[in-house]
């Protein structure tokens, strides 16, 4: 078990290095430090001196991969690639182009992201499974068909509609909760409710249909017939036999995204003014602050890889047929 996790982590290193190099190339070769400086300083009326000064202030004045002017190890370490890209491996994110401590920002903002993403996931799973179970229980009746139609309608509506509709209906007309914004501590609750409701609703269509197809696939299997032939009631068959088997793809499908919950939701956070990591990225892009974007891309990759490892571990936990070797 331990050996397995270790091996997976070792396998992850080349992937991370690859991602690291690619983002580095994208951010430094395609978009050179000069371009960054110009963007930061305001496009027009920038003198070359101002650019150079900005680059020195922000540490962008070094060569890309190899520093000829330095000695020994420093030839490699005193470069952009080492300072700006490789350091990400030690989760040392450095300062943003506008001078903020990225690591500190992340630590501070991730709680707001989690406060929204975790309830959306948990409530969403509960509602989607219940809804899917109901459709499967009434399979090939009008109830099931209407359920599927309802899902398809939910799916084809854009999330923006849910956001704006929710803000208008609940926030503006009914005045139940604030339209947007955030506060720390217990006060957060009244700001969280609306984005969570919107997040859950916009996920019902796709989620329930996915779960329904998993359940239906299981329903077609021979062990279900055996269970019925034993005299078990349909409810027992569904909840004991089918749910247990269906939970394998469901749990593993959910586990893979759990680490990524830290990253928050780009859309919801920026529309509801939640100061989480999602809106952090959006703001950074808007301000052309590429140090932040780079850090977040790297972090996202790491979390995704952790998600994949957790998925495999989850398999061995929920599926007795899978044993690690």
């Amino acid at each position, binding site marked *: 078990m331990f*050996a*397995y996790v*270790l*091996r997976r982590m070792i396998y992850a290193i080349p992937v991370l290095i690859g991602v690291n190099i690619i983002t580095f190339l994208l951010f430094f070769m395609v978009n050179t430090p000069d371009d960054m400086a110009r963007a930061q300083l305001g496009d027009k009326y920038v003198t070359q001196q101002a650019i150079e000064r900005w680059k020195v202030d922000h540490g962008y004045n070094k060569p890309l991969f190899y520093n000829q002017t330095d000695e020994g190890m420093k030839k490699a370490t005193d470069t952009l690639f080492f300072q700006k890209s490789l350091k990400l491996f030690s989760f040392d994110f450095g300062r943003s182009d506008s001078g903020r401590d990225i690591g500190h920002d992340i630590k501070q903002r991730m709680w707001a992201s989690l406060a929204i993403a975790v309830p959306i996931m948990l409530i969403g799973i509960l509602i989607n499974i219940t809804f899917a179970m109901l459709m499967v229980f009434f*399979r*090939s009746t009008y109830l099931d068909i209407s359920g599927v139609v309802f899902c398809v309608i939910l799916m084809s509506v854009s999330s923006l509609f849910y956001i704006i509709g929710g803000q208008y209906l609940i926030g503006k007309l009914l005045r139940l909760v604030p339209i947007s914004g955030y506060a720390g501590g217990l006060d957060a609750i009244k700001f969280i409710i609306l984005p969570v409701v919107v997040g859950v609703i916009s996920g019902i269509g796709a989620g329930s249909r996915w779960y329904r197809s998993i359940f239906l696939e299981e329903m077609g*299997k*021979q*062990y279900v*017939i*055996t*269970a*019925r*032939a*034993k*005299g*078990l*009631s349909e409810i027992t068959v569904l909840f*004991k*036999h089918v749910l*247990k*088997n269906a939970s*394998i793809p469901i749990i593993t499908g959910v586990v893979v995204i759990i680490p990524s919950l830290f990253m928050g939701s780009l859309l919801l956070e920026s529309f509801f003014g939640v100061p989480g990591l999602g809106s952090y990225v959006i703001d950074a892009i808007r301000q052309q602050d590429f140090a932040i974007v780079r850090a977040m891309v790297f972090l996202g990759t790491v979390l995704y890889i952790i998600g994949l490892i957790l998925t495999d571990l989850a398999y061995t936990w*929920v*599926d*007795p*047929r899978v044993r690690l*070797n």
Partner: protein
Amino acid sequence: MSDSILDIIDLKLGFETSNGVSPAVDGLNLSIRPGETYALLGESGCGKSLTASAIMQLLPDDAWIMGDSEILYEQRDLLQLPEADMRPLRGKSIAMIFQEPMSSLNPVMTIGQQMSEVLRLHLGLSRPKARMLELMVKVGIPDAQRRLNEYPHQLSGGMRQRMMIAMALAGEPDILIADEPTTALDVTIQAQILMLMQDLQREKGMSILLITHDLAVVAQMAHRVGIMYAGHLVEEGSADDFFKNPLHPYSQQLFKSLPNIHKRNESLATIKGIVPPLTEVFEKCRFASRCPYVKDTCRNILPKWPNAQHKVRCHIYDDHYKNLFMQLDSDDNQKARNGLTNDPENLLSAKDLKVYFPIKKGLLKRTIGHVKAVDGVSLHLKTGRTLALVGESGCGKTTVGKAILQLLPNTEGNIQYQEYVLNDLSYNQLKPLRGDLQFIFQDPVTSLNPRMMVEAIIAEGMQAQRRYKNSPERMIRIQQLLDQVGLPRDSLQRYPHEFSGGQRQRICIARALAVDPKLIICDEPTSALDVSVQAQILNLLRDLQDELQLSYLFITHNISVVAYLAHEVAVMYLGRVVEQGPISQVLEGAKHPYTQGLLAAVPSIEKRHAFQGIQGELPSPANPPQGCHFHPRCPHAMGQCRKKYPKSSGFSKEHWAKCFLYD
């Protein structure tokens, strides 16, 4: 009627199709008596399993019961029973076991959990453990205590089926419905399971409805027999009457199409055509399109189901019509084969073949051991002859076939083909020889690419082997091949799914023949087919052998096919050949205790209620027993058998076995 426990009266059920509802089971009448085994026999798709599901009220969602069907059990019509009243009967009064014991068990629940459900539900036991252990001992599961906490995948196929039986017995049912309970199992395990069912029936007095396609299993098990064809019951009678004197033309044809050793010098009778598909409009007698005695009357008037001891649905036995059939002019299609000629020469010799699959473990995937799938096998394949390779599943038969064709990387040993040593050749040197050596697989469905048309499938190998320069030449050859394997000429522009199982196997054979092979390795080529279709394929393989002097390595577990087809047979056990010899010498004078047990486990039609089996199951090839691999299951095992592996002892020029009894 009063002496029966279950009466099916005029059962009619069908599916919605594009041309209306098609009656998949049509007017079926049968009664099951207490304590008897009623065998319902028929080819795939004839409605056997639907009948069983109708009794259990577990029909698929899109099946409809029609007309005035009734299924009477304890004076109640099960078809009218509301679900709430039906449920308590399932598993309690009527229990069921299925063909595939792996998929029939819930993979993520332990054996104990699945079994305790039944005991809690039907017997109200809150602590069912003691009773579970009792049941498991009864069905012969060793080490029951430990098994309770295991999952289905940790059990062998035979053990899983025993588990299913234990679960079915838990509610102490009056009727046990067994739907092809042994089809997925080896003959040795089949014999064990069937004997277990007989013993349990004797003890508990329950009735068994045994659904099967295997006449020989019926011969061993049944008290009464019903023959189904395309949704009709066409014959019913006591097993004694039926086996002495089968009446319906279909039943008679079934017997004729069974391969066995006495028919070696003739081709098998085949039933022409195929079972009419459900989507077609049936003729009145549904067998009319395939019956050798058919008259117009048969197509227009439905033969009656008489009230007699030995019933048959056929006009020949109806006083009203029987003069129509004064002389029975069947177009008997059996033809004699030419006898064998002089001593054939060796085409291919494999010496000391070894295939070890590494078992890997740990952080660095170290090899910690080997599965010795094939461990020193030597075989000689002769021009124009068939060598059969038999043994239980997992003994390494398929691996031998693949190793001979150099399809496995980790193969040791020497394979001499004509003047070539195959194992010394590089991939490119081997390529031109690939055409000479062909493979036909067990499952004709998965071995054909569903997105290629038949023409492309057959032509593919020709192109790879650069057989024909231009396409007209190739086209002529492809047409010739179609005729040779008996496929209609318009097959070329069709896809595999448009063909029946037997036709698909013909496509596979045509594909193999396309490159003019000298040797074909046939891996269970007929085990996925119905008996009547099997006969067609076996005839085809033999005709082709006579015509083209082909050699076959015939891998199978079906001894009667071996008896009919093979010239020589090699018996494999755990990666090694334990006995080999000419077919008649091995079948009539088997020397190795394993061969003897294997042959005794084969159910036979001639000797009814007379089979025995081998105890135990095939051990894991990763960890074979010390000494003679067979000793844990051998009734004659002696001290030395546990210490070393026996050397071969000869009985005639070509017949030998490896056993200390002859040392």
